[in-house]
């Protein structure tokens, strides 16, 4: 299998905070790589560096032998790397069709036939009949599909998806999962996926890396990763029973069990997400 994208020692420091701390990753051609980790682990910062929106403090990102980090997002898009946003950011003043056309025109600087390519992508993302409307009228799932269509319109080789499933209802989540699969199959893209919805990550990803406090703490096939004690500790705290399940915290999917019992996807219909660090007294001591 050939490596299409490689991050080498990627770090980002915001003042005294090391948001991302020398992370190496590689993405194989046609692969879906999941990136998981508690809130604040540095996942989105990692994405921003790969997509060129923020320059790394050190390290670099190489796409097929070409350095794409440290420039502008445009450089990354032209090279073939595009991202979506965790909080959807459609252009509110453009119709759904025009939103996608912007990607088709400016992604590779190809204005000719942009409309047709955009319409084809709207078909692909089941948004065709919404083409003349403003994005404000779409559901959240619809706007997430629009975000995906706009990114695909730039004709990327590598797609960075930042939480495209979180926050939508189960039926829509399933639809999105299928859509991501067919992006890989029909459009032959390689995908890096940040996601909190564990069942989706587990189903979609060929490989998963886990970030915690800016560091990569685990990497491997999804079933192995969730059994990794470091991963469990990162999500639920070193002494999960007191830290994560203490009074006042929400019941978590693994409630009643200590760190020894593993949160496997099959036994986890609800996302483990990061409920301990969100609502509880903190996932980490």
């Amino acid at each position: 299998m050939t490596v299409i994208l490689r991050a080498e020692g990627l770090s980002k420091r915001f003042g005294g905070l090391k948001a991302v701390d020398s992370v190496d990753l590689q993405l194989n051609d046609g692969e879906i790589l999941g990136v998981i980790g508690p809130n604040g682990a540095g996942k989105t910062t990692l994405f921003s560096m790969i997509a060129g929106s923020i320059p790394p403090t050190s390290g670099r990102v190489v796409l097929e032998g070409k350095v794409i980090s440290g420039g502008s997002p445009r450089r990354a898009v032209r090279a073939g790397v595009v991202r979506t946003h965790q909080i959807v950011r459609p252009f509110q003043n453009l119709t759904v069709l025009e939103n996608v056309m912007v990607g088709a025109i400016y992604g590779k600087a190809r204005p000719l036939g942009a409309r047709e390519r955009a319409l084809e992508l709207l078909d692909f993302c089941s948004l065709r009949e919404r083409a003349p409307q403003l994005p404000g009228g779409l559901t959240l799932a619809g706007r997430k599909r629009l975000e995906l269509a706009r990114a695909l319109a730039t004709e990327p080789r590598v797609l960075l998806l930042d939480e495209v499933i979180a926050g939508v209802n189960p039926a829509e989540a399933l639809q999105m999962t299928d859509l991501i699969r067919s992006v890989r199959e029909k459009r032959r893209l390689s995908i890096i996926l940040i996601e909190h919805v564990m069942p989706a990550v587990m189903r979609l990803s060929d490989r998963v890396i886990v970030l915690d406090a800016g560091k990569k703490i685990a990497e491997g096939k999804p079933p192995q990763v969730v059994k990794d004690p470091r991963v469990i500790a990162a999500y639920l705290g070193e002494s999960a029973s007191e830290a994560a399940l203490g009074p006042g915290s929400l019941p978590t999917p693994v409630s009643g069990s200590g760190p020894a019992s593993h949160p496997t996807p099959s036994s986890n219909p609800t996302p483990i997400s990061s409920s301990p660090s969100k609502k509880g007294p903190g996932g980490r001591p």
Partner: protein
Amino acid sequence: MKLLPHWVSRPALAALVAAVAIGAVVPKVLGWSVYSQNQVTETFLFVAAALAWNWMGGYLGQVSFGHSAMFGLGGFISARLLLALHLPFWMAWIAGGLVAAGYALVWGHPTLRLRGPYFSIATIGVGEATRLVMTYWEDLTGGSSGLSLPITAGLKSELYWWALALMALVIAGSYALRKSTFGLGLLAIKSDVDAAADVGISPTLMQDIVLLLSGFTVGVCGAFYASFQNFIEPGDMFGFDRSISFVLMAVIGGVGTIIGPAFGALVFVILRQYLIGSYPQLYLGIYGLLLIVVILFEPLGMMGLFFRIGRRFGLLRPEVEATLEAKAAVGGAAADPGARTGGPP
């Protein structure tokens, strides 16, 4: 026929050609007095300036309170060239426009990183600083005693046709900057700079291009105004109320719309004529009041009213009206604050 780009609508082109033809014929038919014809010339001039301001303020959502800097610079550069080198006046205008565009780029390239109110505040500083420097730079501007230009009455009436041509060009430019693929990119930048950059747009480059075009056009308008007035002085050319007048014309007519600022300029010129005649001490205050009223009750100004009337009488489908209004709105996200979900990342 493949002569025209796909985004040019035939009816719009026909309307422009018809308007120019009417403008060309009317003074001959009606036999206007010199005074009325000069009034119309000045109106055309301000239509052009207001539309050029709107490229920044309406199309990019970067509201400038410093456009008097380019207006004045264009005026004084061309005046000096006319006086010193006796160039044909159109050549002096273009030179004035180019210098104004260059100056716009010098202050605009760094400040355009700011957005919204921050950019606007920076432009106030630029405008006022320019006014002060120019008032004391007597070698260029003649200081507070100003410059007199040798203009004959014959030339002054000839300027009507030049103003008509200038206005027609700027209207065509306004249309192109909204409807072309470049215009689609500008709308994306106005809505969300970072998201636009993430799909491959270079906001810096595109904003600089718009700034150059806007600065050039306003500079040419200033140069035209200098030729037309016989006499210019820095306090008038670079004054803050000059900058405000561009904002006001665009807001009254419909900021962010293609043709709205043109109507705004028309209203502005009529209103100013009346107010300066009757209430010279009040007119700035009345402008301010007008600005507040329009922004509160009809943010898209006269175009907003036209849209409403169009919908009421079934000439404009509601969803078409919605997209028109969304494109005009300053700041795309402001058009629909509920559409963004979730908190900050």
